């Protein structure tokens, strides 16, 4: 793949715009609250698009296309079983606590609801994870550009990091959020033509269904037994592991995405942010799953040497990760090729900036201010926030080089991330809906959940991974193994939290007012028009989601 002047021009225009957004926002940054929290002033349409864009990092985009090619249409479960239900739950039930408590971050909510040690555990693990995730985004971007365009690896790392640093340092969270919206449109408009031409080339959806095994074109039909579908899991494992534990754990508790709703103008907008975001999210499989299914259909029906094929890996199998870049290289001519490459770059930079801005909020508020310098001036925390952004980017660069030295660090990080995030939703569910839950219960529940995840991973094996204690339970896919690990970690956290809470002293009702469901005043119908209220909107979305599941059953 080689680029021409027009392609470079599109990339250049994009770089100029993202940095320009930073300069435009810079004038509005006068306090630490502006820099780290956008002063809770962002319009609803921007918070909603930023909410899903924060999850549109390249690992997700490349990963979902790869999963579409590997597992077929079953990959839509990440959207129509996982994301939509969790986003609606966040908007209707959890945002009133996050937003109403005036917490500036998810760890700070844990402090208000539980205690200092639960906040510290969550803040430290989250800060470490975001830096590693940001670094791995950077590494993956540089590696991809090196492989497909033969660009210099080091130069890619420093230029990409420099641009993200410029706009996050200039405009803080607002700048990152504004660029996420630009990146969202770029990804959608940049990849849509690919879906259309590739689908046309494959002969349309009916031809794809004829050419592929039925397991790859049905979402539910073959989920009765783990042996009859490519993911190797049964439908109950999917519903509990992915639909409940993993999705709710990510969408409802990960500060990276929740932060986008917490900066909305008011409670109504904060509640509607994830619900409005669920509308485009529902149709994202058209952009990120369908290309993978088309790619495997084209590969299996390829007759001539010039026909499209998914690239092979060193072992002779399919290199699924390269599915999207190879589709772009095959179908996009000069000009649009620049748009496609820019869309990929945008998704990597969006993922990196999202992690860095979440990191600087958590580090400044939940580590620096909470444990080191409590009562400094606002100017001091603004400067610290900027300094933390700078160091966050530098640490990310360091992590990118560490990732380059270890070929399995991404797998390792994803594993640790699932260990930490998997059980977290149990802590929030109990904390928000059972006032008897105590700080000791929450802390030891998190510890037990993480340990249970590690033990489950050590006892299961999938695609050569896991089984380090004893490989007594084989699973046919890594994804299926992740669902099982998440399920056990959640159950261990849930039970441990309840058990420890029953033997320890809870906070008084007065201390918990506004932090738990039973002690929070319910506010209904603040919006006059029904279609602006969270509940009716959610019901419509749930009906559409169920219909989509039935159509692709």
């Amino acid at each position: 793949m080689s680029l021409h002047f027009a392609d470079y021009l599109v990339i250049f225009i994009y770089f100029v715009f993202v940095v320009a957004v930073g300069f435009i926002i810079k004038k509005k940054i006068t306090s630490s609250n502006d820099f780290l929290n956008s002063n809770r002033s962002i319009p609803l349409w921007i918070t909603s698009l930023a909410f899903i864009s924060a999850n549109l990092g390249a690992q997700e985009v490349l990963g979902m296309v790869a999963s579409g090619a590997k597992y077929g249409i079953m990959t839509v479960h990440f959207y129509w079983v996982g994301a939509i239900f969790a986003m609606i739950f966040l908007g209707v039930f959890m945002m009133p606590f996050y937003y109403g408590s005036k917490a500036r971050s998810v760890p700070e909510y844990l402090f208000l609801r539980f205690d200092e040690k639960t906040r510290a555990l969550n803040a430290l693990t989250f800060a470490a994870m975001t830096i590693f995730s940001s670094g791995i985004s950077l590494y993956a971007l540089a590696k991809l550009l090196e492989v497909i365009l033969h660009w210099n690896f080091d130069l890619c790392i420093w230029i990409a990091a420099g641009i993200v640093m410029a706009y996050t340092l200039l405009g803080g969270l607002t700048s990152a959020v504004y660029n996420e919206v630009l990146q969202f449109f770029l990804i959608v408009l940049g990849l849509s033509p690919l879906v259309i031409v590739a689908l046309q080339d494959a002969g349309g959806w009916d031809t794809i269904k004829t050419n592929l095994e039925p397991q790859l074109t049905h979402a539910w039909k073959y989920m009765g037994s783990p042996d009859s579908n490519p993911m190797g899991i049964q439908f109950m494992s999917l519903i509990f592991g992915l639909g409940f534990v993993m999705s709710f754990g990510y969408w409802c508790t990960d500060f990276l995405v929740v932060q986008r709703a917490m900066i909305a103008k008011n409670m109504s907008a904060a509640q509607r942010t994830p619900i409005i975001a669920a509308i485009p999210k529902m149709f994202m499989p058209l952009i990120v799953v369908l290309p993978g299914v088309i790619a495997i259909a084209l590969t299996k029906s390829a007759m001539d040497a010039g026909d499209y094929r998914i690239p092979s890996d060193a072992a002779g199998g399919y290199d699924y990760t390269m599915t999207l870049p190879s589709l772009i290289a095959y179908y996009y001519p000069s000009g649009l090729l620049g748009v496609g490459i820019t869309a990929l770059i945008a998704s990597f930079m969006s993922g990196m900036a999202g992690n860095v801005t979440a990191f600087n909020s958590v580090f400044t508020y939940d580590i620096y201010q909470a444990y080191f310098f409590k009562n400094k001036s606002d100017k001091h925390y603004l400067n610290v926030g900027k300094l933390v952004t700078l160091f966050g980017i530098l640490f990310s660069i360091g992590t990118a080089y560490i990732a380059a030295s270890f070929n399995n660090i991404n797998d390792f990080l994803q594993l640790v991330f699932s260990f930490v995030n998997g059980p977290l939703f149990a802590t929030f569910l109990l904390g928000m809906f059972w006032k008897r839950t105590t700080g000791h219960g929450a802390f030891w529940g998190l510890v037990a959940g993480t340990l249970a995840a590690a033990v489950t991973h050590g006892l299961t094996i999938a695609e050569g991974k896991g089984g380090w204690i004893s490989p007594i339970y084989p699973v046919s896919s890594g994804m299926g193994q992740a669902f099982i690990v998440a399920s056990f970690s959640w159950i261990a956290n849930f039970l441990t939290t309840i058990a420890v809470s029953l033997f320890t002293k809870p906070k008084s009702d007065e201390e918990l007012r506004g932090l738990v469901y039973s002690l929070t005043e319910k506010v209904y119908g603040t919006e006059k028009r029904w279609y602006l209220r969270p509940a009716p909107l959610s019901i419509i979305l749930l009906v559409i989601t169920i219909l989509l599941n039935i159509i692709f059953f």
Partner: protein
Amino acid sequence: MSEKLNQLSFVIGVFFILVALVLLIGYATTTSLKHSINLYTGLGMMVFGLIMIRLKA
């Protein structure tokens, strides 16, 4: 103008109009860009960009 630049929809609109111009001018003047997919995508992005700059904040 400076007020317009503070509107995200305006900034996004200008970005897509510029990208559309690269595709459309390239299609009209350069052989290597003369593909119908560039033309249609350019037109689509132009329409999207114009809608975005017309939106109120």
